[in-house]
């Protein structure tokens, strides 16, 4: 059987999700026996226009050029997988969408703003092309990526685990930081996948895997208020790594730039 052909493309990002491949250790060599990696700049493969079975896309769309390039990627791939928060929800850099002050920022920053070609808003990949599978996480981890590759090799879609971090937190037997320390933990509304890292390290989850199923964000926001967070601090909890994910955006906006007192709690 011919090995499936894969490509890893980079858009606006920190390169961290690609490391889910490069940090595989010896499994990287095993992976390269199972699949044929045709395009992956950081690993040295350069053939962006070649047709592949699976294209992994890291990063969000933030320039007109990227908008064009993603069309080409889509056209050349049978199955398109977004890799991480940037590609899936816009990522941290999509915070700039909130202020709506892109032009102002750009003009303030660059001596020759005419050379700077950026979109007014940072967009997730799915806003431009059809995405077959979304891998959440900032960053995605190697287990997620391997599970996805393995499932695709079997010819099935990977399991989409939308459970919340709290479930995994208890499976890991971590002690709840909200209950014992009053920390504003995002675990109750955040998708599992990291193994409940933050609570295991004695700190609150900051939502880097995006919203879980039935994310009770408004309820949690009220709880944060009860823990003493002022509205803007509540907003910052939701408007962080996955600020553009609808469930987080909606609740975050309610509290965003609201002076304390304006918000009934």
């Amino acid at each position, binding site marked *: 059987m011919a090995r499936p052909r894969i490509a890893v493309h980079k858009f606006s990002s920190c390169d961290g999700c690609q490391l889910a491949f490069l940090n595989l250790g010896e499994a990287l060599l095993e992976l390269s026996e199972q699949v044929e990696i045709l395009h992956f700049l950081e690993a040295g493969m350069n053939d962006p226009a070649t047709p592949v079975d699976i294209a992994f896309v890291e990063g969000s769309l933030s320039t007109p050029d990227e908008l064009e390039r993603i069309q080409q990627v889509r056209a050349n791939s049978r199955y398109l997988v977004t890799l991480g928060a940037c590609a899936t929800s816009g990522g941290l850099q999509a915070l700039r969408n909130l202020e709506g002050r892109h032009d102002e920022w750009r003009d303030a920053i660059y001596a020759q703003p005419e050379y700077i070609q950026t979109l007014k808003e940072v967009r997730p990949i799915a806003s431009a092309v059809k995405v077959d599978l979304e891998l959440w996480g900032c960053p995605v981890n190697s287990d997620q990526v391997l599970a996805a590759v393995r499932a695709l090799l*079997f010819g099935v879609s990977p399991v989409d685990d939308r459970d919340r971090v709290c479930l995994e937190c208890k499976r890991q037997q971590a002690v709840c930081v909200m209950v014992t320390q009053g920390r504003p933990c995002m675990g109750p509304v955040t998708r599992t996948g990291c193994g409940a890292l933050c609570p295991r390290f004695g700190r609150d989850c900051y939502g880097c895997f995006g919203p879980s199923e039935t994310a009770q964000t408004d309820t949690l926001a009220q709880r944060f208020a009860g823990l003493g967070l002022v509205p803007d601090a509540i907003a910052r909890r939701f408007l962080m790594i996955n600020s553009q994910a609808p469930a987080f955006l909606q609740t975050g906006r309610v509290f965003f730039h609201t002076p304390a007192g304006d918000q009934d709690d």
Partner: protein
Amino acid sequence: MNNPALPTNALILNRIQETEDIFTLQLRLTDPRQHWRLEIQPGQFNMLYRFGVGEIPISFKAISQDEAGEPVLEHTIRSVGRVSRALADLKPGSHIGLRGPFGQGWPLRRAEHQDLCVVTGGLGCAPAVSIIEHAFANRDRYGHIHIIQGVKHSADLLWRSRYEFWAQQPDTTVMMAADVAAPGWPWYSGRVTELIKRLPLKPERTLVCCCGPEPMMQASAEQLIRQQVPPDAIWLSMERNMQCASGHCGHCQFGADFICRDGPVMPYPRLRDRLGLEGI
């Protein structure tokens, strides 16, 4: 102790495409020590496992025999999601895992020498096929066979040829109802309960096997009771998410019952006051 969680290997002897998305697998349990698993009854089910992908509950359909007289286990599957599609991709000669039999089947003993009334609804109902096949295979043990099938839209009727075939059999009534019927639909358009009203039932000697969406089963049962069928002669096949199939994982709870262990086939009186409760 025998571990109910551990599957055994099954060879796919044959794969029959029944409709566009329904297929039947004919299986051989390759380990003879596992042949006790063939003591499976209509209404019971097995967990079928596709290597590396997962397991799903699938009703027993029939046991047939190959040329050598060896038992062949049949399951009919509709490919809808992850695991069922992965099973659909397999070809004869492939292997799957299988564990079971699980659950309570149709009350076959009790049904003997009675009329059978099989009421099904929705997109094809596998547990009902097994009892119908069983009844035709042991035709002399049963009286009249009524088969009623209801669908939302006439285009939803799967396996039409099968119903047409049954309709030709002696001492058999087959009736179809579609809530919405396209032109040319030869059968009734309306609700299943309306069809039940028209059935020439002999309530005192009829055993009802019902399978389909819960509201439809509930309405049918109530209609049958109105037609004097004793409540305990009405049996329903229930469906819930199942992971372990052995009454442990909690997913198939229905009030105080585990559908996988106490069902899937259960008498109506046991279910009556819980059917229709939202979220149960």
